[in-house]
């Protein structure tokens, strides 16, 4: 999708921070955003952690990433708006190319759109706001719902969780805040779209979602960026609180350009009898580290993680999932698939942890990797730690290539070799890709067709 975007550089910025990170910059950002003291202190504490902590010792090679060269904050010259008419033409055009306003009219309950560091558009259907559903950009939420935000902001992922969580805490900007009141079922998905438009910038949006008791929500997140020759950094954070009996589905399609380092943190705390579903599709970026996490805190809580990762030329995708069973009678299911192609490297890293307190746990973990040529690589490291004797755990891992006998079978029915390979790879992705919004499913298929010069519809 990002290939289709072109930028003429006509967007003006009212604030463009210099590269680099220090206390002064953090205070400036906080001042510009007119933040309460507690938030400024959270930022400064985070900066402290960031400066003290060392880089992660696993995952992708980030030695070329110099955070001091990243532009951490860019405010486009556009006030946040509730109607597309008011969004400056050149920014609106970008989102129109991505089909966002059209999708909003047809299939979504609300949309938030972020351009570089700030949200430029936010709208939710009236009937939902009348039911008490809140859908705001994060900055407005800090001001309008201080109690609620303070109670939950960076509680699921504390600033000292890891180095990039700390970085995020220091310079977060933009993102969405969602609150769904008790027993309200949001009938259509809400969507947030993140666009990183400027070379060398970092995007650090914060998404905070609270689904109250018995409520239901589907949230979709999409990301893209045009390609530049310098490194862009995305280090967003998603925190989700799923209260008793509630149900939450979070779908992501990550299609950052290939100069982006995507070091992202996503975590959900799941209470009694609640359900959390993560659907993640990763296509873009140079390097990704992403492990959506579910902490099953309440008895009977459930989590389902579905990942599909495509690692193409020059991409190293370190993706996976983490599930912590804290309470008894909790259950989880992981279906993680990856495709590596043209020298790409797909690494599955998973952790399933069953604490001593979590008896009668049920879990199945399945990870499969498909390498479509000899230049590509795949690894799977699924770690399972079970600390009690009453758990029912199933695990399966497969790494393989397309079988010659499968290609032959399809060709014996008249299908060309390229189409046969494309069909097999698309079939491999199908169970996960069909969970994604249609336009993203099409994007996955387009990549596979390109690889095998196939023109399957």
């Amino acid at each position, binding site marked *: 999708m990002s290939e289709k975007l072109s930028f003429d550089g006509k967007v003006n910025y009212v604030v463009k921070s210099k590269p680099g990170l220090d206390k002064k910059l953090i205070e400036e950002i906080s001042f510009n955003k007119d933040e309460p003291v507690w938030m400024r202190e959270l930022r400064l504490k985070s900066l402290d952690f960031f400066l003290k902590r060392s880089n992660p010792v696993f995952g992708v090679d980030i030695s070329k990433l110099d955070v001091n060269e990243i532009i951490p904050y860019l405010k486009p010259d556009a006030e946040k708006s509730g109607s597309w008419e008011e969004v400056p033409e050149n920014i609106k055009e970008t989102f129109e190319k991505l089909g966002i306003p059209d999708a909003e009219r047809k299939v979504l309950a609300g949309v938030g759109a972020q351009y570089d560091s700030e949200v430029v558009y936010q709208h939710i259907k009236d009937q939902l706001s009348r039911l008490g559903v809140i859908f705001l950009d994060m900055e407005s939420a800090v001001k309008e719902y201080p109690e609620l935000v303070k109670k939950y902001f960076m509680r699921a992922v504390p600033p000292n969780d890891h180095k990039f969580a700390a970085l995020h805490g220091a310079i977060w900007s933009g993102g969405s805040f969602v609150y769904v009141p008790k027993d309200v079922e949001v009938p259509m998905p809400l969507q947030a779209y993140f666009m990183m438009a400027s070379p060398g910038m970092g995007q650090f949006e914060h998404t905070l979602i609270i689904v109250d008791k018995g409520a239901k929500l589907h949230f979709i997140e999409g990301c893209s960026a045009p390609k530049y020759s310098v490194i862009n950094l995305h280090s967003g954070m998603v925190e989700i609180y799923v209260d008793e009996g509630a149900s939450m589905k979070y779908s992501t399609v990550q299609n950052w350009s290939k100069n982006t380092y995507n070091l992202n943190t996503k975590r959900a705390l799941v209470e009694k009898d609640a359900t959390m579903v993560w659907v993640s599709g990763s296509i873009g970026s140079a390097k990704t580290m992403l492990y959506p996490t579910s902490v099953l805190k309440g008895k009977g809580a459930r989590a389902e993680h579905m990942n599909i990762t495509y690692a193409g030329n020059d991409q190293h995708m370190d993706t996976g999932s983490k599930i912590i069973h804290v309470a008894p009678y909790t259950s989880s299911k992981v279906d993680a698939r990856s495709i590596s192609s043209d020298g790409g490297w797909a690494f599955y890293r998973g952790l399933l942890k069953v604490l001593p307190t979590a008896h009668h746990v049920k879990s199945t973990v399945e990870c499969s990797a498909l390498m479509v040529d000899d230049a590509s690589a795949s690894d799977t490291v699924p770690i399972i730690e079970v600390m009690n004797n009453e758990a029912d755990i199933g695990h399966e891992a497969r790494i393989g290539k397309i079988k010659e006998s499968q290609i032959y079978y399809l060709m014996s029915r008249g299908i060309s070799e390229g189409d046969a390979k494309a*069909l097999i790879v698309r079939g491999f992705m199908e169970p996960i890709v069909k969970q994604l919004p249609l336009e993203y499913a099409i994007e996955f298929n387009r990549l596979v067709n390109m690889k095998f010069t196939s023109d399957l519809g």
Partner: protein
Amino acid sequence: MLLEIRNLHVEVEGKEVLKGLNLNINPGETHAIMGPNGAGKTTLASTIMGNPKYMITDGDILFEGKSILEMTVDERAKFGIFQSFQYPEEIPGVKLRNFLKLAYDTVHPDKKLSVFDFGDLIVKQADKLKIDRSFLDRYINVGFSGGERKKSEILQLNVLNPKLAVLDETDSGLDIDALKIVSDGIKNFANPKVSVLIITHYQRILDHVKPDFVHVFMNGKIVKTGGMEIASELESNGYESLTV
């Protein structure tokens, strides 16, 4: 002549399996090749279809008078050759219906059907073969029993409607009812314009399909040709009695 195999020598992994095989099939004829296990029956079927695993060291295969040795597998399929497999592959994530539509449009580019007309066509064929319609929307062969896979092969045969059907051990693993249904499916396909080559170890499918010619295949060659009486003879005396 539809298919003409001349002095065919084939090697698999450096070992000669076919050692000078000759076979002629005319349009409208049904031939059966019977042979013991390990005689190279699957090698013959896969060589006709063009599986690159099998290396032709001598001889030729002509289809409608033209050598097909240089043609790829999919080109041969478009030319009108069909192989039914003893162990059909599973293709997870690809629905039988979508796959068959794609295959049909590829082998019959001049007779493309709308999704609805194609739906009618496959449902009709599935009903004839007593295949539950829900199978059409399942992934190719995934979770199919042995018998269901064989029925799916015969469904594909009837939908794609080639000129030559090469059926490799289509009867293996079938119970009596399924054998009857599959045999009816083969007879349903057979007509004066198309030809069938049944490759089998046992006589029982031949009792249903009644081929015009039966060939005995041993040690990489056809050692005897005749009618159904040969099949009965083999059934009572075994292949050993025929050692030449």
